[in-house]
């Protein structure tokens, strides 16, 4: 053992990833190029047209998902950054309590939380029913079954994943650096813009990564909170796998989504200007 110990200890983790990540992805890549149906079987025909067909058929839902995911991520950033900032710099001795409160919703399952939003936002439910009773809202006002509800649900469900990494990055900012900025005649805004914000960017990057990817692929919010014309690509993939047993199309769509997200993240990492931003985020 001795110096080899780290290798041995890492082995189960690598095997786990190898068996449960690499092999299924390779199998999925293979299935995405087959043709056939469940009854006759799927034969490997290296049919690349599965991709073009699937993209042509579902481009609306693919673009819609990227827009929903993008808007939700932007909203989470706008909502989450101030919260993370506040906890990091103004939280005082109660920081851990605030963080705990942030994580509290995770003690309830994701789907249940989304369904309970459905109850809260029902047309004549506790919130809108009361407001309509007071005459504040018109009687046909509703939020459920709209785009607003889906994006709202995405923001609600993934917000902590945006706040936590930003908080970690801000928490690590040395207060003396900010003092130094003031000593050099920086205004409060300048100190934030030129010192705090750049230092927190790895956190922002990690936050965006951890929210944009799952929000774009999420099938639950569109199914529970959406209406007609809110179907996201995650719902389509689910239907193709489970309802239609159309494994090639479902696999091709999954890969397309993965590729689109990877390209998006790559461009994003480059524009943020930090060559090793992934490393920074991991640090």
């Amino acid at each position, binding site marked *: 053992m001795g110096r080899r110990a780290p290798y041995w200890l890492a082995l189960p983790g690598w095997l786990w990833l190898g068996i449960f990540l690499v*092999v299924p992805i*390779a199998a999925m890549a293979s299935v995405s190029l087959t043709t056939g149906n*469940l009854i*006759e079987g799927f034969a490997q025909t290296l049919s690349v047209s599965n991709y073009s067909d699937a993209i042509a058929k579902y481009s*609306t839902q693919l673009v819609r998902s990227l827009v929903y995911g993008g808007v939700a991520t932007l909203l989470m950033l706008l909502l989450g950054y101030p919260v993370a900032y506040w906890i990091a710099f103004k939280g005082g001795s109660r920081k851990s309590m605030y963080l705990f409160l942030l994580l509290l919703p995770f003690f309830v399952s994701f789907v249940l939380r989304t369904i309970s939003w459905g109850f809260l936002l029902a047309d004549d439910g506790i919130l809108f029913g009361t407001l309509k009773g007071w005459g504040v809202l018109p009687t*046909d006002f509703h939020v459920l079954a709209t785009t607003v509800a889906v994006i709202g649900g995405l923001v609600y469900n993934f917000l902590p994943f945006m706040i936590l990494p930003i908080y970690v990055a801000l928490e690590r900012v040395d207060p003396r650096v900010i003092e130094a900025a003031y000593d050099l005649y920086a205004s409060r805004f300048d100190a934030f813009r030129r010192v705090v914000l750049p230092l927190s960017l790895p956190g922002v990057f990690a936050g965006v990564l951890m929210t944009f990817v799952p929000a774009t692929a999420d099938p639950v919010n569109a199914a529970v909170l*959406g209406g007609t014309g809110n179907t996201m690509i995650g719902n*389509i993939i689910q*239907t193709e796998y489970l309802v239609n*047993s159309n494994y090639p199309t479902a696999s091709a769509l999954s890969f397309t989504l993965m590729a689109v997200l990877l390209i998006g993240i790559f461009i994003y990492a480059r524009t943020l200007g930090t060559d090793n931003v992934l490393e920074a985020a991991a640090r």
Partner: protein
Amino acid sequence: MNNPLLRGLTQSRYSRRDAMRVAGFSAAGLALAACGVQGQKAAPPKASEVADFWSTQKKNGQVVFANWPEYMPEDQGPLKKFQQATGISYEYKEVIQENADFFGKSEPQLRAGQPLGYDIIVMTNGLQLAKMITLGYLVALDHKQLPNFAANAGAKYKNPSFDPNNQFTIPWQAGVTGIAYNTKYVKEDITSIQSLFDKKYEGKVGMMADAQEIANFAMFAVGVDPDKSTQADWEKAGAKLAEQRDSGVVRKYYDQSYIDAVAKGDIWLSQAWSGDVFQRQLAGEPVKFVVPAEGGTIWVDNMAIPKGAANPVDALMLMDFMYQPEIAAELTEYIQYVTPVPGVQAILAAKDDKDAKALAESPLIFPTDDDYAKLRSYKTLTAAEETVFNGIFQSITQG
């Protein structure tokens, strides 16, 4: 100019060797999985094979029953009576929420020849049950061990078109898809399917996400019998549904959650399953159920034994036990769906309980011949037809 985007996209960051390595891994992965997915289309079993199979099976004293939620009295009375009568202990699991989902999750296991861990499953006479039969995932039943079914099942529930001679399935319960509406908001008596397409109810109509359910109703609306429908009819029905959606009449395409939405008033009227509505009425909610004049859909949930089941004899005994009229009546009283045992009507009528008497008179639990004449099944589809059919109707619900 120092544009990081341009720099990042133009600078070479990976050596050719890296690229080759990635390609090598991918190729290995492809080779590994290149075999694809084998088809399993099974020839129908020969009578002698079926007899051989059953002659080697014995009663094991236990059985695992997988069913849908709210499909058994809360005290599990019928199952307890089964245990007392036969000495077979049971496990009852409410694990089936949706046919497609259940099939999608079970299929890989069954294809690999692994047991599901259930001795009885319950599936609706739809696309997925047809696939289970075609793929040979169900055990052919031994009708010699089903005397109660032979004696007590109604003629309409024997020898169905989706499973000739009940070779693989016998009914658990049946039900009707019609229209449910909330009488707090809808002030007229709904009688026609056209109400679901009425601009007056803009944004207040629920339709089902299931392709077969929505297709049947659209075909009723355009005056087509689903059983005799052709691709041209499906396209016509699809156009009707597209118009309904694009004019804003439909709020959403629902799964089982439609009934909550009707009860809460998020939608005022919706496609609905009969038993759901009755259970809400019992709870005192202002919901009504009607089979539209143009037609409604009748479906049957069926018991079957999946391949690899550990206790097939015990499973057959339980399936047959449910066909004793007294037991079937107990089920009907609680779950309020259409029973495949006509003898239940007389038992309920003879009870000293006015709720039970009311059930016996309900045309939705014991449809009359006139009612049955209005009811249609799902169309049986070949694999090729299914692709076209799903394409048309999923583009409506998942647009």
